[in-house]
């Protein structure tokens, strides 16, 4: 098998090229232990089996960003057979800076001179032959968005891999001063650090040791004495008058510039480019922020309005026909009652829960991919950075935060647009404070019961509370957990480009699938656990005696000072971990005791299928209408819903307006739901941040509810 690694700058069209080559064979995952996306594909070309690994987009191979570390670790440890270096033809010099570094590795390189059409349109002429001469590697022009040049590229790669190409890799001449130093050091390395020389490409190793690369220095315990290091450094300082790192960067960039001048000819007069024209509006002093907010509003609205009818439809199908037919089938095989209950209330409900996220996740992934691919994401960060920095966040954090109001789960998935681990984690930790749609049913029930006169204001106050606490916690985290972590904002603003539809779809599909497969397993497990808690010991008459009820009784004491210390409330809060809207369902089940008996009408399978079909058409219709309707959240209808009337009566007896408000603020804050937690686990590859989130949110929720309840009592508000 031939292993090909694809390396290149961000925005060089690398993803598009990889997608165009691998198509649906592409598998999206994460690099072990980190949040950086890993894409790979195995396929056959010209009778040869190929493994394609897409490295993270990087500008350099220095060990400073996560992406760079991953890319270089992969290259030096796994030594692929060939590197495809994707180079943006419109931005040669900076792209070739990475090429120069790749050549130090001694691994055969093939350059894909991508976005070649755009360079031609600009009047840039690139002399391919002399570029091959200068760099000593094969150069193939490609336009990944139109799938041109791909066969040439793969043929060239196979030729290089099969050693039948004139070009594969070349040692560039860094000038006599540096080269003589390198020769001395290479000899010394072989003498004194042969174990390293066996493991790494020698030339690369030499320059890394020279630069003082921390990762390599660790391997020799920081001891460079065996390298005549001091003399070497002094010699170079004298010649160049600068520190080694700067010398290396300058030498490499000089190589890139030299090559660019040699191969590129472009018109003297530069046209004003489309990107500049668009930016004049989009980044305008007065229009920049409003345009950004309008766009966010559109994405938010589109995502949730378009997907909600489908979510409801899936919910209806699963809890209706699917459950019914599972019961019928289980009845036919005379399954015991507990099996039926486990399958329908545990497994099917659990699976249903996962599937219900499908429309939202896919829509949001689509938008994220589009915003990233088009170049707008970088602008969004540029516009919002000043505001977000105040709470220790990055400009790009705004997007996941806004999405959090719809659903925390895709919001947490969206943190992958951030580059820096600290920014990702901090954003993900604050997202659960954004009041998601699932909390709305609880708010609606309580606000409608207790605050029907100023329901709007009370509801609004809960959303604002979340935002204010996110700002506070952002500042707290910035000064505690993330203290001293540097926050830099050095970001390319790439030219606007239209992402290809096919590419968008592939990427959306892969990202969505990745989430569902991973999350599905955990969610199923947790739903079964909750089912067990609620139904064991088997045959409990009264929910109070179930394990859930018993647990509720124990932890109810904790909620006493908050004004809602009953086991019923405590138990519903436990089940609310799955998803916050379940709190209402559990309350209904516990308080009203006799289960809301589902009318088991006798329906034929055909009838059910027909009904599913009809309701699906309605969902499509609703979804389309929603796109055009202009209301913010048209679904809030406080007071309606007659089904809840008996529950309202009970709640009115149990809560005072004050304790109700304390309860609502607790529900808002107390912890991320299980799906959000799993999304967090997926993104960060560790349960650590989920743990932090649980602890701080429970503490915050408790303190806030306590302050509200006790403070209100002191002031004598809302007790009656």
């Amino acid at each position, binding site marked *: 098998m031939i292993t090909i690694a694809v390396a290149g700058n961000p925005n060089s069209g690398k993803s598009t090229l990889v997608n165009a080559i691998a198509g649906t064979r592409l598998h999206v995952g994460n690099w072990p232990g980190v949040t950086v996306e890993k894409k790979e594909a195995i396929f056959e070309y010209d009778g040869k089996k190929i493994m394609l690994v897409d490295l993270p987009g990087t*500008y350099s191979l220095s060990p400073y960003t996560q992406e760079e570390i991953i890319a270089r670790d992969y290259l030096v440890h796994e030594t692929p057979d060939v590197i495809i270096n994707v180079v943006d033809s419109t931005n040669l010099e*900076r792209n070739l*800076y990475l090429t120069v570094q790749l050549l130090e590795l001694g691994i055969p390189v093939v350059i894909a001179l991508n976005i070649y059409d755009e360079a031609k349109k600009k009047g840039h002429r690139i002399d391919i032959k002399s570029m091959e001469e200068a760099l000593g590697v094969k150069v193939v022009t490609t336009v990944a968005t139109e799938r041109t040049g791909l066969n040439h590229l793969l043929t060239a790669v196979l030729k290089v891999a099969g050693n039948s190409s004139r070009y594969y890799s070349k040692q560039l001449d860094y000038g006599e001063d540096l080269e003589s130093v390198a020769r001395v050091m290479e000899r010394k390395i072989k003498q004194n650090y042969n174990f390293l020389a066996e493991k790494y490409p020698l030339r690369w190793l030499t320059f890394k040791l020279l630069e003082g690369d921390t990762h390599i220095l660790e391997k020799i315990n920081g001891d460079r004495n065996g390298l005549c290091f001091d003399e070497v450094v002094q010699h170079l300082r004298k010649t160049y008058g600068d520190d080694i790192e700067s010398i290396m960067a300058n030498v490499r*960039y000089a190589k890139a510039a030299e090559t660019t001048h040699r191969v590129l000819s472009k018109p003297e007069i530069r046209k004003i480019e489309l990107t500049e024209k668009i*930016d004049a509006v989009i980044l305008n002093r007065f229009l920049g922020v409003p345009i950004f907010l309008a766009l966010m509003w559109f994405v938010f609205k589109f995502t949730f309005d378009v997907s909600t009818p489908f979510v409801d439809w899936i919910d209806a199908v699963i809890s209706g026909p699917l459950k019914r037919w599972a019961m019928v089938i289980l009845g036919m095989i005379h399954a015991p009652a507990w099996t039926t209950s486990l399958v329908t209330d545990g497994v099917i409900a659990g699976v249903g829960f996962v599937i219900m996220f499908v429309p939202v996740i896919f829509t949001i992934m689509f938008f994220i991919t589009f915003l990233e691919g088009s170049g707008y994401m970088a602008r969004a960060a540029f*516009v919002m950075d000043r505001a977000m*920095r105040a709470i220790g966040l990055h400009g790009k954090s705004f997007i996941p935060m806004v999405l959090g109001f719809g659903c925390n789960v895709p919001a947490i998935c969206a943190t992958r647009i951030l580059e820096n681990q600290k920014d990702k984690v901090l954003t993900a930790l604050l997202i659960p404070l954004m009041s998601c749609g699932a909390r709305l049913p609880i708010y609606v029930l309580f606000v409608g019961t207790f605050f029907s006169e100023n329901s709007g204001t009370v509801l609004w106050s809960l959303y604002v509370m979340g935002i204010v606490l996110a700002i506070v916690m952002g500042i707290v985290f910035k000064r505690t957990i993330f203290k001293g972590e540097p926050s830099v*904002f050095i970001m390319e603003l790439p030219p606007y480009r239209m992402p290809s539809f096919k590419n968008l779809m592939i990427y959306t599909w892969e990202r969505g699938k990745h989430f569902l497969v991973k999350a599905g397993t955990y969610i199923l497990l947790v739903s079964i656990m909750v089912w067990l808690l609620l139904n064991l010991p088997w045959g409990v008459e009264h929910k109070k005696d179930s394990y859930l009820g018993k647990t509720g009784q124990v932890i109810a004491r904790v909620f006493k000072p908050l004004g809602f210390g009953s086991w019923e409330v405590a138990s519903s809060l436990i089940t609310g971990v799955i998803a916050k809207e379940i709190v209402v369902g559990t309350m209904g089940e516990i308080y009203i005791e006799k289960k809301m008996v589902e009318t088991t009408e006798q329906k034929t399978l055909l009838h059910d299928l027909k009904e599913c079909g009809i309701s699906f058409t309605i969902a499509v219709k609703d979804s389309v209408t929603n796109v055009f309707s202009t209301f913010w959240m048209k679904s809030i209808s406080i007071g309606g819903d007659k089904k809840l009337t008996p529950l309202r009566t009970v709640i009115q007896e149990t809560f005072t307006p004050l304790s109700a408000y304390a309860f609502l603020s607790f529900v808002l804050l107390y912890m991320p739901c299980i799906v959000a937690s799993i999304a967090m686990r997926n993104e960060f590859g560790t349960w650590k941040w989920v743990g932090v989130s649980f602890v701080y949110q429970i503490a915050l929720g408790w303190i806030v509810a306590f302050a509200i309840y006790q403070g209100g009592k002191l002031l004598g508000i809302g007790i009656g």
Partner: protein
Amino acid sequence: MNLSMLKPGETGKIRDIEVRGSLKRRLMDMGVLIGEEVRVLKKAPLGDPIEVTIKNYNLSLRKKEAKVILVTTAAL
């Protein structure tokens, strides 16, 4: 004079980078090198960060980072 002092439309030549370690390395990797020409394009709507052109591409950075990049302008 440093990069954060230039107004949109003004061009400067980089004289020095007054910082060490990873920030300097990152800046250099992005093409911010001594002797390089840099032109300020615009400020973000909220005044910070700024957008500059360097090595034929557009780069944005915060004023905090622009402050360590010392420049000389043609006028001086």
